Structure formats: C-alpha cells, structure tokens
C-alpha cells in the first residue's frame, strides 16, 4: 500500500473551493513535491492529511490509515511542519526540542541518531531562544522537532519560503538524507527550481493539480519548440516578438525571454522580421518545469 493515497479530495471555505477533487498517491520512501503558488491549495491539502481539517468530499489514507476514521493513529505516525514558524520563540532551542519530545512521549536521546545530522548544526546554540535564531536555523530546529518521534511520513508545508538560496539548498540536502532513511516526505514549495530535487512532483494551481510526474517527465510533456531570445532592449523585444507570426507565447525567463513556437514558426523568418532589433539573438532552449507550469496555467 502507498504511504499516502488521495482520491477526489475537496474542501471549501465559504464559497471558495480551496481544493477541488484532487487525487494522487505517494509511494513509501518517496520525496514528493507539491509545486505551486499561494492559493494553490497546498496548505489545505496538508491540513487535511494531517487530520486538522475534515474533507468535504473524497477519501485519503496516510500510512494505511483513513484520515477521517483513524485520525488518531495518523497523528502518532506523521511529522508535520506547518508553513508558519511553529516553535516557541521564548523557549530555547533545547527546551523546544524537549517539549516536542515529551509531546510524543519520547526523549531526545532515543531519536538522537535520526535528528543528529540536522540538530548537530544548531546544537552549539542550544541555550539560545528560538526567536533569536536565523531563518535557516529556525528551519533546522523545526525539522528536528518534526522528526523527534521518528515519524514514517513527513509533511513539510513550504519549509523554504522566505529563506535565502543557500539555506534552501542545504535544506534540500537534509531532505535527501532523510529519504535515505526510508521516510516518506511530502513537501510543498512555490519555487519551481526546487522541483528537480523531488522524486515526483504535482503542479498545483487554484485547488487543482495540473500534472503529476517525475521532474523529467513533466518537462518531456512540453511538446512545443522553445527558443531563448535576447536583445539589447529586452522589453521592446518582448512586445515585438509577441506580434510575430507563429509565436504562441513569449515571456521573460531569466537573462533571455522564452519564446514558445507554434507550427507556423520559422526561425529565419523571425530573424528577418526583427532584423532592426539591436543585438538580436535566438537560440534553442530546453524547457523547464516553470515553462510547463506556465503552459498548463494558460491552457
């Protein structure tokens, strides 16, 4: 049986459908990413699976237990790190960890081997108040707390939001380490570039899942030809390129704009048409998850 199974799960707040008939499954030991912007329904999904909310429709199981009828069993098996800073700012690093250990009826010593790779990095500051830690350190403490009872499934709701690129990268290294120990991890992020660190991802937007696959599989689904175009004046180029024949879409993408070519597109003709543009260059580009997301969103 899969570690997490979700069938047609829906949740409404007032009149708004935060989650609209979502289905997916996460295998045991898998690192599964929910990728999408604010309002995609990621937090609602986590709260449903963590048994904090009741679903309006649909069923789901976590570690084989039903989220509705067996929610107590689930609570002792999952580790949950909510999106907000979820530690006591007035307690020290160690006091926080001790409290969460007591909450699950374990001691720090019992789980030390599991949390050590993460906790060791903040242990030198164990008497410091959690509120005085840096963003990256808070994140490490929160993860240590979520792991203290050796959960089989880990829910991480936007753990890297608001954290700088270096700390984010370190965090993903830690998750890779936990995955090796057989923990199933469901993690959400608004950063598309983090998707490649997952085994499989679900692209989410406005309560729907736009697509589920491995990061490579998602990218392979991009069936149009993609070009990167550049010029001295990038903004003017954007306007011009959009009006050209056979251009399905054109949008800024890092140092170059990405141009999604339609059937009628011809590179030579495009160059000729924009021959007056200073410093024009056009090269073939590899699609990324973000290109696919944009494509799926616009469909």
């Amino acid at each position, binding site marked *: 049986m899969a570690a997490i199974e979700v069938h047609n799960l829906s949740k409404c707040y007032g009149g708004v459908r935060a989650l609209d008939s979502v289905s997916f499954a996460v295998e045991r030991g898998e690192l599964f990413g929910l990728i999408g912007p604010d309002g995609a329904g990621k937090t609602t999904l986590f*709260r449903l699976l*963590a*048994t*904090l*909310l*009741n679903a309006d429709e649909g069923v789901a199981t976590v570690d084989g237990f039903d989220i509705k009828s067996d929610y*107590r069993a689930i*609570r*002792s098996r*999952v580790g*949950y*790190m*909510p*999106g*907000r*800073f*979820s*530690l*006591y*700012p*007035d*307690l020290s690093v160690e*006091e926080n960890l*001790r*409290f*969460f250990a*007591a*909450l*699950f*009826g374990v001691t720090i010593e019992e789980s030390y081997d599991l949390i050590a790779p993460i906790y060791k990095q903040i242990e030198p500051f164990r008497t410091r108040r959690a509120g005085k830690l840096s963003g990256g350190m808070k994140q490490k403490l929160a993860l240590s*707390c*979520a792991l203290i009872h050796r959960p089989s499934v880990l829910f991480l709701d936007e753990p890297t939001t608001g954290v700088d690129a270096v700390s984010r990268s370190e965090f993903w290294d830690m998750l890779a380490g936990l995955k090796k120990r057989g923990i199933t991890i469901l993690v959400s992020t608004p950063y598309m570039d983090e998707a490649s660190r997952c085994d499989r991802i679900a692209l989410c937007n406005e309560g729907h899942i736009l697509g589920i696959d491995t990061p490579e599989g998602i990218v392979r689904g991009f069936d149009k030809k993609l070009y990167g175009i550049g010029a001295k004046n990038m903004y003017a180029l954007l306007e011009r390129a959009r009006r050209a024949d056979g251009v399905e879409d054109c949008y800024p993408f890092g140092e170059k704009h990405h141009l999604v070519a339609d059937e009628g597109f011809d590179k030579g003709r495009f160059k000729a048409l924009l021959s007056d543009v200073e410093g024009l260059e056009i090269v073939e580009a590899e699609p990324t998850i973000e290109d696919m997301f944009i494509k799926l969103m616009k469909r």
Partner: protein
Amino acid sequence: MMRGNFLSFVKKESLHILRDKRTMLIVMLIPVVLMILFGFAISTEVNNVNVAVVAAERSDGVRDAVERLSHNEYFTFKGYIAQDKIDSYLRSGKVGAVVVFAADYDRCAELAKQGVEEKPIIQLIVDASNVNTAGSATAYLQGVLLGTASEQAMFETRMLFNPQMKSAYNFVPGIMGLIFILVCAMMTSVSIVREKEVGTMEVLLVSPVRPVKIIFAKMIPYFAISCIVLVMILLLARYLLDVPMTGGVGGIFSLSLLYLVLSLSLGLLVSTIATTQMAALLISAMVMMMPILMLSGMLFPIENLPKFFQVVSNIVPARWYIDAVRKMMIQGLPLVAVWENCVILLGMTVALLGVSLKKFNDKLE
C-alpha cells in the same frame, strides 16, 4: 499519557510565564498596589470636622450643645444655618456635618425628663463620602451632644452621598473578583490563542496527545499564580487593612478556589472563540471586565442599578462571588451562610467547563 509528560508540559508553560517578566510583575503588583492604595486612603481619624447647626430657636438646650461643640478640639462650629441651606453647605464641603434641633427641643426634653413624652430627636446629617471619617464623626458627635442631653434625646442619623456606608473594605472582594478573572481568564485565553497565532497549535493538535490535557497543563501555572495572589490579598487584607474576616479564612479560600476554576473555564471558552491574541484581549475586556466593574456590585450597589441591569447582573459570576466574599469577610458570616452563592457559582462552573470543553475540538475547524 505518562505523568512525567504532563509535568513537562506544566514546566514548559511555567517557562513561558517566567520569561514574560513584565506581565508577571504586573499581575503580582496590581493587587498589592490596589490594596495598599485603599489601605492608605482609609483614614479613620476625625479631625477638624466643620459643623453647622440648624435650630428654629436658640434655646438654652441648643446653646448648651453648641457650647460643647465649639470647645471640642475635633469639631469647629461654623454657625447657625437655615433649614434649606443644609444640602448646599454639605455639598459644597463647607461643613462635614449638620446638627438639626427640633423647634420645640427644650420643651420636649423637659417633658421627656418628666416621663410625659418621648425623647426629643436630634438629627445628624453627615457627609459620608469619606466613609470612615463619617462613621467615627457620627459616633463622636453623638458622644459630645449626649453630654448635654444624655437621656433626653434620641439621634436620627442621615448619611448623605453614600447611604450604604460602603467602606474601603468593600473593595477588597471587588479587587479579588477582578484580579482572578484577569489572571485566570484573560491570561490563559491569551496564552492559548498565542499558540494558534504562532502556529504551534497545529503541531500540538497533530500530536497523539489529547489537546485537552495540554490545555489543563497550561492552566496549572496560572492556577498556581492565582493562589499566590489570593494568599497575598488575604494577608494584606488581614494585616494591612485590618479586615476582620471573622467568617473564617478557610471558607473564603475554598470559595475563591471555586471561583478560580470558573475563571479558567471562562478563559478556555474565550480561547475557543478568538483566533488572535488581540481578539482574546478584547473579548476578555468587553465581556468580562466591563460587567465585573459595572454589574458585580464592585463599584455600584446592585440595588441602585436600573431594573434591567439588575436582572443582567445575575449572570455575572463575579456578582455572586463578590457578594459572598463580602458577607464572609466583612459581615463575618460563615461559608454555610452563603450556600446559595456557592451553588450558583458551582452550577456556572460546571456549565462553562462543559460548554468550553465541548467547543474545544482537536481540529482546526
């Protein structure tokens, strides 16, 4: 859940409180400051009370009495005034007391001496806005005047501006009613709601521990603080304010413990409604503080309230608590004498605890 765990929750909660030194200090200081303030505000010494006299005719008896007043070092005779000036003299503070002799005072006194008629009446009208001085001034005046009239007069005393003779002692039960709501209801609700705001509540709820246990662990330190405050208040009342408490300290203490539990349940109820600390504070202030100040008899006697508010005051727990403590503390009644109040408070506690525990579920909705 193991007992060791429960203790570790209590410890964690105590750490929160101990680290928030400012709030802690305020909670401990407020009752002390209030008690000391009232303690010093009370002055029972009679000094230089200005007295005016109303007499239709300045008969021998009247003059005799005035003579004694003027020679007494505690009173200053301010002269004779007309009947219709009494109120304005008292109100403006020109005099602290007015002695009114009946028109036929001398004749009545003479007849009374012969046993023909009842004793003449000397009316004392006293400004009672300062309760303690008014009390002793009255007694003193009677003493001075009786020297002349001894058996031949009866006194009729009217206390103006504060007819119930509400003394500063009366504020002690009021302070208790207020401070325990502040500590138990307001502080617990804010501390529970803080966990919702910070996001730790989500993690607590997802743990296998029943949240109700965590909540109870949360209440214990606040309960302990309240007990310390209670002891402090009782000690200050007894030794600083000389409140007699002949009804027995044990009774007051037991009743207060019941009131503490009631306040904690109220705090829990607020925490299930409010989602932000600000909201919890507002609800506590509007729904609990205001009624306690206005409708519990702490500031205004309930019988003086408009009929509608008298009815409303019945659902304010502090009203029953303050009333009972007042009876035990000042009138010296034993706990059994206020059994009705106890039953009402117990009923309220059970109801509140029931509702709030039912409302407090282990989901976010």
